[in-house]
């Protein structure tokens, strides 16, 4: 069976060790986590997790069912028609071209976040595939550090 990439959002009760329940479920059943982001949902007692995972159809179906089976899980959204974004921060040496770096970041929906005496820090938020392209393109400026934020997603409708 073909292995495919999926993005799943999980809405959970915001309680003690709920993240551990989710991650140990993935570990125990041998599922993959490519990226994972978590944050509380404003004005509620719930949190939202966005999990980027890989597996064949049967595995993905099991992941969704098993996530749903956890007692604190309120909702599992298997994204079909989604807008997804990932943030990445990159640090470059100060002797690289600030103007060129800025132009590249702007092409990928970002910009310069900070400049210190030693480093330039940039920030880009775009589709995961484009973030990957950005990171490739930015190699010529000799980045010293890359921090990816993981995928967040929202259904289009």
């Amino acid at each position, binding site marked *: 069976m073909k292995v495919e990439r999926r993005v799943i959002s999980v809405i*959970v*009760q915001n309680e*003690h*060790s709920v993240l*551990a*329940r989710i991650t*140990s479920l993935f570990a*125990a059943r041998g599922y993959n986590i490519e990226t994972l982001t978590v944050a509380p949902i404003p004005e509620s007692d719930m949190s939202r997790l966005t999990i980027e995972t890989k597996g064949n159809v*049967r595995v993905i*179906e*099991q992941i969704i*069912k*098993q996530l*749903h*089976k956890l*007692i*604190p*899980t*309120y909702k599992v959204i298997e994204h079909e028609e989604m807008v997804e974004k990932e943030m990445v921060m990159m640090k470059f040496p100060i002797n690289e071209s600030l103007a060129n770096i800025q132009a590249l970041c702007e092409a990928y929906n970002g910009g310069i976040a900070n400049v210190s005496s030693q480093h330039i820090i940039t920030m880009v938020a775009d589709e995961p595939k484009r973030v990957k392209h950005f990171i490739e393109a930015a190699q010529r400026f000799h980045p010293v550090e890359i921090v990816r934020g993981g995928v967040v997603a929202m259904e289009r409708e």
Partner: protein
Amino acid sequence: MEMTGAQMVIEAMKLEGVDTVFGYPGGAIMNVYDEIYKQNDFRHILTRHEQAAVHAADGYARATGKVGVAFVTSGPGFTNAVTGLATAYMDSVPMVVISGQVPITMIGTDAFQEIDATGISRSCTKHNYLVRSAKELPHILKEAFYIAASGRPGPVHVDIPKDVTAELAKFEYPTHIDLPTYRPTTKGNVRQIKKAAEAICNAKRPVFYLGGGVISSGSADLVREFVQATQIPAVETLMARGSLRHDDPLLLGMVGMHGSYQANMAMSEADLMIALGPRFDDRVTGKLSEFAKHAKVIHVDIDPSSIGKLVDVDYPIVGDLKEVLEVMLPKVKECVDPDRYQAWRNILKRYNEIHPMRFEDSDEVIKPQWVIKRVGEILGDKAIISTDVGQHQMWTAQFYPFSHPRQLVTSGGLGTMGFGFPAAMGVKRGVPDKVSVNFTGDGSILMNIQELVTAVEARLPVVNIILNNHYLGMVRQWQTFFYDKRYAETDLSFQPDFVRLAEACGGVGYRVETKEEFDEALEDAVNKGVVAMIDVIVDREENVLPMVPSGGTLYNMMLEYKD
């Protein structure tokens, strides 16, 4: 009303109607035990090992259908309980296990008898809690019982730090629980049920595949009616034994690795499988790609994640089996013609004539299967049967004449040696008017042998019948078949004198080497109502047959073993 956390635990037991707690005290749970001392609402049974406490609660739950309860202390008390939790989890047994924990102020400091208990139990419980304050305790306890017994049942673990059991708070026990994040689907999809009913009426070679869900949902009566009305033959998994009466002509026997030939052939040749509450365990299916490959599949299960997990399902129905059958049965009755399956029944009957479930009896040595059959003849449905794990377990499943649900208490999923004796104590406590028999092996019995003391002290007369072949029999069998008889660490010729061992603990021991001696021993043990250890010396080399080798196909069984 204000009370301490420890008092809340006792109060909750009372409100949940708990009549028995199995357990073992220790430092972190002493406040709770102090309250146990002061009360008369339930009986506490002191086992001699925490694992046995949880197995006893498990046996109690399986035999009665009620939630089993066990108390243990922190650290080693809890880790000893883990095998019990995992056993109950694999077989979906409703249970609440409460453990003590070091005080909240000391959690994370590697305190004496501290262990991350909820971290450990997370993967072997349906749900667990670390209680943070006495004020949340009433709600958590109510939730624990609710979650354990509802949906797909399972064990729930509540870890209570010592300072929480001393803390005062208001006690308001919720009358009902509504969890927005936990709402098991109990009503099946009516359209799907209708389609399934039509598929049944249109099938030529249908077979019922009955699983543990038939027992746990209390659907055995409906299933019997279903089978009767349709005249469709049925196979049972180990966990479903007793769903149908052993003498029902439509019962093909147990399915799977040590199932009957006709049951496995029925699965292999069926054009429709009506799966009611099974989970397609590898010990049932054998090689998945060859499993029931001609059959369309109807699968009814309370747990959506069981459906389609291993086998593609044509008619998935998520719901409580009882509620689903109440809708499905009338619809099937409208369209079914039992004569339609006559040819199919004849084929299966023929299979059974060719290879019936049998064993070669002997006059020289006692055959283990004979012992089980004999107990069946003498006690029949007057007994509830527990087992340990191994050859004796399979022979029990094959040869005991079960006639009602909850008559077999056995660790199916986890396969826990040492389960049988403590579970049989729980059975006796839950169903005192039946004879509690534990079929065990000379390997398994030693894994919780300390419970002889508990059973004698607590007056829980369990009749342990050791099918003693001086081997770790099932492993020895695999070594015979698949490892050229290299019997690595399976020869148990050195063993205790089980008769004197029983006597040392206040029980009664019998050593049996002939059939006559066995009859006398059993009669004596049952009549006297004592904790008994009947050590039956059986044929050393007997194998469990037929057999589907691991990963093999159901239609290609090993029917006999020739040296």
